[in-house]
Every structure is written in C-alpha cells, then in structure tokens.
C-alpha cells in the first residue's frame, strides 16, 4: 500500500451571500490556486460550478483537524534558543584579555592570545601580540600583531606592523579600522568613520 503524508494550506470561508462570495473570489482567486478552500454554508450548485470554473479545490462544511499552532511556535522558539546557546559558550571559553591600562613610553606589552585594550598606546610604548588586537583609543606607539585581525585607530606617530608588513598610518586614521589578512593581502576597512561637522 502506498501512502503519503503532507500538510496543505486551507482557506476557510463563511458563505453569507453568493454575490459577495463570487466578487471576493473574482478578485482573489489567483491567491488560492494552491489552497484547499473550505466553505461553511449552503452547498449550492452555482458556487460549485463557479469554483470548478476557477480550477480551485474545495470542500463544503468539513471540520479539518488543525495542528496546535501555539505548541508549534513554542517548539520553534525552544529550538532557536538551543542554537543560540552554543556560540555563547564558545565566547566564554575564549580567553580574550581585557585591559584598561595606559601603555606608556618604554612599556612593552607582550601578549600571548587576544587583547582588548580600552586605553591609549603612547608614543614609545609598544604591544607585541600573536592574537587578535582591538584598541579603543588612539595609538601613538608601536604595534606588532600576528593575529587574525586588528581593530584600531592610529596617529601619524604610530608604527604598525601586521604579519611582518608595515601598515601605512594614513589608512588607519578613521575612528576604528579593521586590518586583516585575506589571501596573503592586507585588507583595511574603516569600521567607524570620523563624523564631519559642517
């Protein structure tokens, strides 16, 4: 025995007057080509002929078992939450260091891993890092970064070397610039631009 199971779209309509019914379907019959129409009301010959003429599938006065919509939505939400949780766990596991420390002249930060620096790097100060580097304030000092990417803003004084290549400061003037290595080429994208006041 061959069986199939599938869901269909049902359009349910109450039949009050034949005229309004027909004028409604005259306008909208295109929308219901893939629907099953369930008509609640008197089973009249003219309506049947009309629907046959429009090539629409229909039933009269049938109770169609419906799936519990609320439950379905809940189920979906649960699924979504489960999906979200996994990357969150990853983030917690990754050991990015967050520092709010002014890197002064002569100070050298050597970082094994990733760093988020919430302060300045002054002229003569330096950061050497093998991971990702994000600096939220201006860099006047030296940066040596071999990580996946850097996000920073520099002044003319800064000296930035990314994967052994010196990065020209003029590309790092915007408020925040993303520097990354794509196919052995350094790509710089300004993330936050300087607002220009007119």
């Amino acid at each position, binding site marked *: 025995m061959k069986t199939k199971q599938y869901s269909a779209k049902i359009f349910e309509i109450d039949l009050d007057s034949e005229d309004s019914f027909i004028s409604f379907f005259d306008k909208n019959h295109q929308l219901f080509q893939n629907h099953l129409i369930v008509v609640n009301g008197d089973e009249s010959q003219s309506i049947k002929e009309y629907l046959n003429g429009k090539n629409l599938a229909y039933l009269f006065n049938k109770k169609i078992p419906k799936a519990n919509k609320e439950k379905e939505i809940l189920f979906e939400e649960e699924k979504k939450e489960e999906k979200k949780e996994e990357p969150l766990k990853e983030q917690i596991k990754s050991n990015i260091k967050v520092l709010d420390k002014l890197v002064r*002249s*002569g*100070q050298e930060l050597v970082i094994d891993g990733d760093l988020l620096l919430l302060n300045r790097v*002054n*002229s003569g100060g330096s950061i050497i890092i093998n991971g990702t580097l994000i600096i939220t304030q201006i860099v006047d000092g030296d940066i040596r970064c071999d990580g996946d990417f850097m996000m920073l803003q520099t002044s003319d*004084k800064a000296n930035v070397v990314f994967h052994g290549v010196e990065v020209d400061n003029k590309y790092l003037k915007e408020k925040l610039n993303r520097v990354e290595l794509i196919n052995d080429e350094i790509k710089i994208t300004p993330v936050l631009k300087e607002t220009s006041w007119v």
Partner: protein
Amino acid sequence: MGIVIAVISGKGGVGKTTTTANIGLGIAQNGKSCVVVDFDIGQRNLDMILGLENRVVYDMVHVMDDGVDVKQALIKSKMSPNLSFLAASQTKDKSVLNSEKILKLINSLKESFEYVILDAPAGIESGYEHTIEFADKAIIVVNPEVSSIRDSDRAIGILDSKSQRVKDGSEVDKFLIINRIDAKMVQSGEMLKSDDILEILSIPLIGKIPEDRGIIEASNQGRPIVLFENSKAGQAYKRIAKRLCGEKVDFVDVESETTGFMQKIKGIFK
C-alpha cells in the same frame, strides 16, 4: 611625619630645578616647614637658584657616608625661615647612592619637616630611580613639546613600577605641571594644548606656568621667581604651592590670555 614629593620630568632642561626651588619657597611662604633636596649628584645647581651656593659646607653624601649630622648639612634660606636646603655632592656621582642610606636620610628629614621636596636628576638612570623610590607624591614637569611629553611618559611608567609605594601595593600620587606655555603659540596652533598633554599623560593637573623671561634673570640672581609679585610665572608657582598645601585655588587659563597689542584691542570689542 612629613610628605615626600619628588619633582621629575625625564627630559632635562624643562624646569625641574626651577620648579623645585619655587614650589619649596612657595610652600615655606605658606607657613609650612619645607626642605628641598638636590638629588642630582655630580651636577648640582639647585643651590645656585636658591642663592645658597656659597653656603654649602656639607652635602647629602657627607650625611650618608661620613656620619655628618643632617642638621649640620641643612642650610637655612634667608628668603624664608621655613625653608631649608640639602645640597647634592658635586664631586661624587650617583653610584654612591643606595636605597638603605636614602631611606634613612629621608626618614630623618620627614621627622623635622612637613614637606620634603626632592629634585630628581634628568634621565631615568639609577639616580632618578633612587629619587622616586621613597616618594609619596610626584610632580611631573613637562614642556608643551613632544619630546618632553614622551620622556615624562617614560618617567611616569618607571615611577609606577619601581617606587616603594607601588611595591607595597599602593600608589604614588602624580601631578602635572605644564611649564613654559607660550599663549601666543598655543593660540596659533604651533604649541600643544594642555588638554592634549593631559590626555596623553592622563594624570591630574596641578598648574600651568607661562613662559616668562624673568625666570632666567631670577635664577641668575639666585632669587626664585615666586618672590617677584608681578611675574606671571611667579604667581603661577604661588598657586601651585597653595594647592600643595591643601588650599583650593582656581585654575587660571594661561593659554587664552590676551597677548599682544592687536588681541587686546580685539578683546575690547568682544
């Protein structure tokens, strides 16, 4: 027990010694007992600026190494009875210093004075490290130019890692003096603004000193500029001394002061 203030800058020639002399005298004029100590061993000149060069008999090294009593080595200033001076050795060099002896000397000075002000040598060598080692507070003197700012930045970094207070888990209070501000040059954009300097060094300001031609003459005479009532720099040093004594003194904006004839005329029509 008195408090120990080190006056530092990193770079030479920015006005550490002048600042030490003026702040020391300013504090003394406020009625507090104060001793200024020249830590620039081998290159002393605080004695000249204070006008005491002909009165140095014993210096710091005599006290530390030869058993001379501190009271014998201290020189009382004629300009204020509250001010004393301890000279650096001119013949020895900084290698004679060691932490133990310095701590002993500073402790004995703290017992008899409310303020102990140490004039650090330029640079960041051992002489500098010994000066900041036992300081409670530090005054950083900076000129509005990039080289001075970078050197001060370095000096602050060393202060934050090598002073005894930091090793004990506390902190040295730091204050910034911006020296030799030329209002005209700041207004025309040739000189760095104080706000920019403060942002770079990120330590609190205790005063701004305008450029003043009178300082050179005052130093040559051995009379610190605070003694000159009409000097703008002298007034600025007076305000700093008051702030160090705990008084609240409003900041005077030495950068936006009207300078020159044309600007004064413009000021009238504002």
